[in-house]
């Protein structure tokens, strides 16, 4: 076990290295580039035995990753924003082909206007591609989640790709102390990848051919649905083992902070949760019963876990760092849908925050909690969707 000070980007590269990724196909994009630069350097220094494909676009990066994975190699890539959007077609392909690719995505806004700062629109837009989606809060979590993702995705019951989101600059370019797992222990935790049906001249198969409506297409898609259903229990099991081996305390799909007796709970993803937790500490010191739930996983959506965690809450505020135009914030929509089948009916409000990297301070969060308190007191929300800190 070695502790180093490193950025989220370097932590992502270390995650791929410790996982012994065998092929990396990637294309540069700010603020991700440092991840693949570091991996290229690991390879050229002989510290990582892998092939690096210098492809000409993110679309080709994902296409190459799919083929390498289907040939039987453990595959990693990284991207961000426009790059992730360009991959969109191949993201569907990767899950359809049941390839356990792991990808780091530095969460960044989409143009125009150009903006390279933190925003979750890029990954939220890939919601329906069949990828497992994690959002990290710390650099340590970035590194650890990548290792756990390989273990999860390569499981025979899952066989799906996963992306790990890290907020642009808040994680990608910010240094923290990161504990690098021992390679020996990591190797025992994550044995070499063995594809179940690799391309092999000794056992020739045609992979990905035409499936007619009356035939097997629906069944292939049904099987993805069934595998996704198994992700959360499998993740809980894997993280339990990981926590034991590496001395961590990950808690599966949700990270709960002061929620047990909380009247007002905010639901957030990514780095903003840290600011919210600090604010919770401050408000608790003033006697307010507030808490926060951080979604670590957005796909599959942890509905049951959320319902359970919100069982005592009277007011739920959702912090969405992205927006579905013509509707509302994505987490807000999904959470409301989850609550619909229950007899729970807390007041619920959507706060659109931090779009295009606008800073979310403890002051912003305090004001949000205050607004929640006011609404709760009036037993009525003032508006369903509030874009915070907007100057127009």
């Amino acid at each position, binding site marked *: 076990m070695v502790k180093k000070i490193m950025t989220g980007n370097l932590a992502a590269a270390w995650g791929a290295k410790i996982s012994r990724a065998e092929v990396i*196909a990637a294309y540069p994009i700010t603020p991700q580039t440092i991840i693949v630069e570091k991996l290229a350097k690991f390879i050229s220094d002989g510290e990582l035995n892998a092939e690096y*494909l210098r*492809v000409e*676009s993110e679309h*080709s990066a994902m*296409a190459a990753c799919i083929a390498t994975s289907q*040939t039987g190699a453990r595959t990693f890539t990284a991207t961000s924003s426009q790059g992730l959007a360009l991959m969109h077609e191949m993201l569907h392909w990767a899950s359809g082909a049941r390839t356990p690719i792991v990808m780091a995505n530095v969460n960044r806004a989409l143009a125009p206007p150009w903006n390279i700062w933190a925003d979750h629109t890029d990954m939220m837009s890939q919601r329906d591609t069949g990828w497992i989606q994690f959002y990290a809060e710390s650099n340590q979590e970035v590194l650890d989640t990548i290792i756990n993702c390989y273990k999860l995705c390569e499981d025979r019951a899952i066989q799906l790709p996963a992306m790990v989101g890290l907020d642009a600059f808040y994680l990608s370019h910010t240094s923290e102390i990161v504990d690098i797992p021992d390679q020996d222990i990591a190797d025992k935790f994550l044995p070499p990848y063995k594809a179940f049906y690799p391309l092999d001249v000794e056992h020739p198969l045609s*992979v*990905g051919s035409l499936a007619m409506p009356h035939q097997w297409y629906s069944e292939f898609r049904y099987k993805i649905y069934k595998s996704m259903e198994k992700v959360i229990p499998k993740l809980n099991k894997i993280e339990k083992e990981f926590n034991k081996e590496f001395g961590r305390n990950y808690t599966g799909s949700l990270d709960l902070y002061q929620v047990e007796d909380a009247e007002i709970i905010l639901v957030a993803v990514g780095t903003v949760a840290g600011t919210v937790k600090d604010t919770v500490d401050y408000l608790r010191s003033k006697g307010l019963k507030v808490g926060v739930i951080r979604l670590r996983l957005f796909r599959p959506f942890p509905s049951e876990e959320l319902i359970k965690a919100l069982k005592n809450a009277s007011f739920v505020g959702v912090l969405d760092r992205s927006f579905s135009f013509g509707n509302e914030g994505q987490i807000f929509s999904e959470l409301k849908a989850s609550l619909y089948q229950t007899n729970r009916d807390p007041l619920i409000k959507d706060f659109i925050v931090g779009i295009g990297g606008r800073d979310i301070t403890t002051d912003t969060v305090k004001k949000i909690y205050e607004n929640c308190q006011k609404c709760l007191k009036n037993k009525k929300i003032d508006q369903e969707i509030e874009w915070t800190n907007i100057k127009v």
Partner: protein
Amino acid sequence: MNRAGIPIEEYVCSGHSACPGCGALLVLRYVLKVLGKNTIVTSPACCFTAIAGMFPDTCMEVPLLYNAFETTAASASGIEAALKIKGKKDNTHVVAFAGDGGTADIGLQAISGALEDGHNIIYVCYDNEAYMNTGIQSSSLTPMGATTTTNPIGKEAGWKITPKKNMMDILVAHNIKYAATVNPSYPIDFVKKVEKAKATKGFSYIHAYSVCPTGWRYQPELGLEMGRLATETGAFPLYEVENGKYNITYKKKTKNVLEYYKLQGRFRHLSEDFINDVQAYIDQEWQKLILKEECSKK
């Protein structure tokens, strides 16, 4: 075992769903005869997707990976990289097999990338001169004068007036180690060139003439004759470029393009004037090719 230098083994078997007289399947059949059992093929959306068979059936005796339309070269380079890291590349050939649209249009960027990145793959373009699988739309390899569903004959005009993109020149501009045009009507020449591609360490490119009776509108039994006419008129010259050196492998350009064009429904609307323009263009390209070959010898 072989016949006239052509291996007898078959890696494309019966039960496929190609149209009668399909050139694409013949191209793949010859390619695999030369490359043999230790070959992995990757192919995008194209006629071959429909030809190879519907899940769970296949006509292929070697592994086949289907990929998305624009990704054939990226997919092939991915397979190659994975084989390399698994220590299996030395005895396995990776073939990218795509149509003219998947090669010269939507897949061009990925080819450029994979070629420059130095991947050891054999890229085979079967050129049937239009998007045939989607129902005969023009591609950038549709020849001058052809009508397609996106170049329909109307009251004013409509047929394709621009010439084919020169894929060989584009590939040669990347300093490719080996690139060749082949035509199943000349099987011995075809096989020799694939053997050279097989022996090449690095990216090699085979541009294959691929007849399409459905899209070109002629009787399917005329396929091999059509191929001979294409080469004898210079509409599809046979040559290779080895480390920058041009070598024309069939020099007898003896016939006028009219003889080739008049057999196909897709050219039936053309006026004598336009055919003359086509002839002038073909002659000019042929002269350029001869000059390139001469320059190579100096």
